[in-house]
């Protein structure tokens, strides 16, 4: 079995859950004997760079010393495409990022859904054109390689998947890690929605990361339910050691960690914090992350008069994330819409009890977590208070939470994905 896979990012260049998920999945697939050609967009930082380059194991900045890693790279062919498609980019952000670049729009003649492809090393003037350009490159790669199934991750690579399917006639699997409704609520970007829907219609099978997402695909995109399958993500649990870090404050700490955007529900966290702080002086709240709602949150905290107990850290990564978990007593993920949600699993691995919204895919598979509706700030506050005051609860979470997370293996997910491939060939 050989698969042409279109991803977004790959370690160590990771900005979000999708890169981690692709890495976990491809590794587990390789151990099941699945071979992959993995294609990722990457801005080369050199305008004269070739439009794509093939990289082998030694070029990738991941440790390759273990046997398992060697095996992995034997099964994996890795292609980087020079592109401005960067993860979590929306059309507006793209134009802001690249507006100063001189663009020669004359050169861009190709369209995604026509059969006429031409080529240029230029970037697209806007994200939609860039996605089209990427699809053209994808079709070229598809013509040059042999494979049995095409697998695309999230909307930026759906056109690439469609184009590859058109030139090769091979079946297409699309993997929905998030939809436009998760990112934008009801105020969706119509262009993005259209691309997502075209991908779903063209796909022979659709993999969703939770039943929550499966339902959105079926109901909001009008896709026939018999080709949509849920495969839960796995978790890579390394040897987590408690970082050598102690808290500087005596109070208990309740943490929000994630992008401060509509999707993540930071406003509900602030309101719940206010309720708790008014009742219990012995607690502090931390909002870690950045995003377009950050300034609004800071203003709201100031207006509520709780700024002495509510802290913002900005964007955290790497060791700082681990440090944050190490000093947290409760982790809250109040997402309005979360297709899966990996961060509570990271918290549980660090022995931090979690409160998660019922509107998250991960709530479908976790037992040892408190589940609430994201809008129910009373219940959120009550659960926070309970975790801070009733010791039996924390003991219970520490005892079972981590081992529950350790059960969520990528091997199970890869097995299901392979079954889906096999149903197509």
């Amino acid at each position, binding site marked *: 079995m050989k698969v042409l896979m279109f991803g977004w990012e790959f370690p160590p260049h990771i900005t979000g859950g999708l890169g981690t998920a692709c890495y976990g999945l491809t590794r587990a697939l390789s151990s099941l004997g699945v071979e992959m050609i993995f294609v990722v967009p990457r801005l080369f930082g050199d305008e004269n760079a070739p439009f794509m380059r093939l990289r082998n194991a030694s070029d990738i900045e991941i440790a390759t010393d273990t046997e398992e890693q060697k095996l992995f790279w034997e099964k994996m062919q890795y292609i980087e495409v020079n592109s401005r498609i960067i993860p979590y980019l929306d059309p507006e952000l793209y134009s802001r990022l690249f507006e100063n670049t001189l663009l020669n729009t004359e050169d861009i003649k190709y369209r995604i859904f026509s059969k006429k492809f031409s080529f240029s090393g230029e970037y697209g003037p806007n994200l939609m054109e860039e996605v089209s350009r990427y699809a053209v490159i994808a079709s070229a790669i598809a013509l040059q390689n042999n494979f049995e199934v095409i697998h695309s991750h999230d909307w930026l690579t759906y056109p690439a998947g469609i184009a590859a399917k058109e030139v090769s006639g091979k079946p297409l699997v699309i993997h929905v890690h998030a939809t436009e409704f998760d990112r934008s609520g009801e105020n969706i970007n119509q262009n993005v929605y259209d691309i997502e829907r075209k991908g779903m219609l063209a796909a022979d099978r659709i993999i969703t990361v939770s039943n929550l997402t499966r339902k959105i695909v079926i109901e909001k995109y009008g896709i026939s339910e018999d080709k949509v399958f849920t495969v839960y993500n796995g978790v890579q649990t390394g040897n987590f050691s408690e970082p050598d870090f102690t808290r500087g404050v005596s109070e208990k700490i309740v943490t929000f960690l994630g992008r401060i955007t509509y999707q993540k529900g930071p406003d509900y966290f602030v309101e719940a914090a206010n309720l708790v702080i008014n*009742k219990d002086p012995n607690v502090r709240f931390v909002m870690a992350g950045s995003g377009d709602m950050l300034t609004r949150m800071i203003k709201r905290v100031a207006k509520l008069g709780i700024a002495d107990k509510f802290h913002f850290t900005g964007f955290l990564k790497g060791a700082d994330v681990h440090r944050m978990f190490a000093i947290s007593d409760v982790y809250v993920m109040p997402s309005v819409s979360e297709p899966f949600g990996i961060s509570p699993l990271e918290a549980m691995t660090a022995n931090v009890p979690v409160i998660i919204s019922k509107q998250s895919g991960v709530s479908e598979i976790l*037992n040892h*977590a408190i589940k609430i509706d994201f809008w129910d700030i009373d219940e959120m506050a009550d659960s926070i208070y*309970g975790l801070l*005051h009733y010791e*039996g609860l924390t003991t219970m979470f520490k005892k079972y939470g981590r081992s529950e997370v350790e059960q969520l293996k990528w091997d199970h997910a890869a097995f299901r994905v392979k079954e889906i491939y096999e149903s197509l060939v």
Partner: protein
Amino acid sequence: MKTICFYFQVHQPFRLKRYRFFDIGHDHYYFDDYSNRTIMRKVAEKCYLPANQLFLDLIHKMNGAFKISYSISGVAIEQFEKYAPDVMDSFKRLADTGCVEFIAETYAHSLAALKSEEEFAAQVKIQTGLVEKHLGMTPVSFRNTELIYSDAIGEMVANMGYKVMLTEGAKHVLGWKSPNFMYCNAINPRLKVLLKNFRLSDDIAFRFSNKAWEEWPLTADKYIDWLNSSDDKEEVINLFMDYETFGEHQWAETGIFDFMKAFPEMALHSGNYKFMTPSEIADTLTPMSAIHVPYPISWADEERDLTAWLGNELQDEAFKKLYDLEEKVKATGNEQIIKEWRMLQTSDHFYYLCTKWFSDGDVHKYFNPYDSPYSAFINYMNVISDFIIRLNKLQK
């Protein structure tokens, strides 16, 4: 001739309302009157009223040859008083036939026997007082919450003057012995012990409507065949179950009422069986031997132990916090405080905290008002926190 002993447990807890931490120190009312009333009315219409009528008719029809027994928890009797006096009246009509025995238990359907002999005895006194008041008879047989029994609990019950106690015929206690004999307590042999035949009881209580069961549908004929297949020397078949089996756990549409309507008459006509109540059996049969139960058993789950109510961190903390208050509560002499402390002892509150069934799902979600044991725990501890504040105020 063998004896069949029917015993039904009647219980409804006072469920707690959603009690948030904001309420601590402000709102001192903990109970969910609305759901307690609606659940009581629903179960009354589906189970208590039609089942009582069925048994009343059967007793009349069999001219006193059909006998049954009940235990009704004190908190259930109080809810009948409040929400379903019609049910209480129909139990009174059953009591008046002379063919129905009402059995003693704790007031709160509590686990007090495991923690405090004084509180255990006090609660039994309250419950038997309620039985006397409403049903006009003084119980002489005993059944502890969820059939929880051990040698030590049996001894306490014997000291209270009861002649017979009901419990589970747990395999790990019986070994090669049969539940179909009468036994006696290992410490005080004056207390007789009747053991539930769990296979035959659960055929009715759990499996009756299960279409995947190879014996489905269960008919009275078939059931009597099974009874006939037991060893000739065996003396008594104890069929113990939740009363809510009739019409609530097994809906009327499953034919459960028709089964119960047909079974007693067939059993009596076969000439091989008679029906007796626990105290009659205690007066008639001779104990086979002592039964040794060093560790408490119950009728719950595969394990037949206490793990449905106690053992995980949540349950143990809630249980300890509650019973640590015993002395303080009693010292107040405040009737309302003592009563509420007892209502918080109802075993259901601890049952909601059980995490055993994360793996096997739905059976236990029935009538469980909480999404998860965690939210049940937070709610219960919020209530206890407020209760402690009130208690401390009273002491000053």
